């Protein structure tokens, strides 16, 4: 086992103390931990984030294995538990909270309102719009990073991050939908990387994409 001191010393050596302290003193909520959210959570945990809230009602299914950060042994488990278990093996010192619940316009503000940064990582377009609309109108201190358009295997260079306003960022190619194009792992991972990177940038006071 490595100690907390050893773990953080290694990150400080890479990131500098100033950067590490900012990352490590922040908590981020992730709404949906499928293809986007599972990779976002893992990358933020590796970067030394202080804490994560993982929200998803779903259990791991064989159909998730093509692009989500789960293994065959996780099939049938709640995604929240399966992801927490994996993150604890990568960074045991980050504070992981989990919630097995379907997010609605009625509970979203309660679940996410206390987080300064929320990452939307849902699958369904209506759910994405619901969360963005609810948080932007009800949670004035929350910034949301959302995603739209990452299916298929078109150029990964089409995926970008746009800043809509001071509290709303969106990553994706904005057009390629999973309704008629299969989701494939590389572009989903590119988009997850965009969202996670934007979260880090906000934490580090870089507010433009």
């Amino acid at each position, binding site marked *: 086992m490595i100690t907390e001191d050893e773990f953080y010393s290694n990150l400080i050596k890479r990131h500098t103390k100033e950067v590490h302290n900012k990352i490590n003193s922040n908590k981020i909520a992730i709404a949906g931990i*499928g293809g986007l959210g599972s990779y976002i959570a893992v990358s933020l945990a590796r970067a030394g984030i202080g804490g994560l809230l993982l929200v998803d009602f779903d259990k791991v299914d064989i159909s998730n294995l093509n692009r989500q950060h789960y293994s065959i042994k996780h099939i049938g488990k709640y995604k929240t538990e399966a992801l927490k278990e994996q993150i604890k093996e990568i960074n045991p010192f980050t504070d992981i909270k989990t919630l097995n619940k379907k997010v609605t316009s009625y509970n979203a503000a309660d679940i996410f309102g206390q987080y300064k940064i929320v990452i939307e990582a849902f699958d*369904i377009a209506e759910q*994405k719009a619901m969360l*963005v609309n609810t948080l932007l109108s009800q949670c004035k201190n929350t910034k949301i990073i959302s995603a*739209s358009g990452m299916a298929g295997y078109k150029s990964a260079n089409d995926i970008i991050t746009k800043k*809509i306003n001071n509290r709303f960022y969106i990553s994706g190619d904005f057009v390629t939908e999973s309704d008629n194009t299969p989701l494939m792992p590389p572009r989903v991972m590119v988009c997850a990387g965009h969202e996670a990177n934007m979260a880090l940038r906000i934490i580090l006071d870089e507010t433009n994409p």
Partner: protein
Amino acid sequence: MFIVNGKEIENSDGILLEKYINENGFKKERIAVEINGVIIKKSDYSNYVINKGDNIIIVSFVGGG
């Protein structure tokens, strides 16, 4: 004249936001609308009258994640 996603829209001042959304291929349940920096609640789409000079951003979401 008002602006939607950076594009100038002529001869439509006074139209209801909901009507504009429906007539231009947007799906109400898959969008977020900001007008002059303020997010418009879905329940207000049917009574917001688009004014001359409004700067409107309509963000459309597509599925996948």
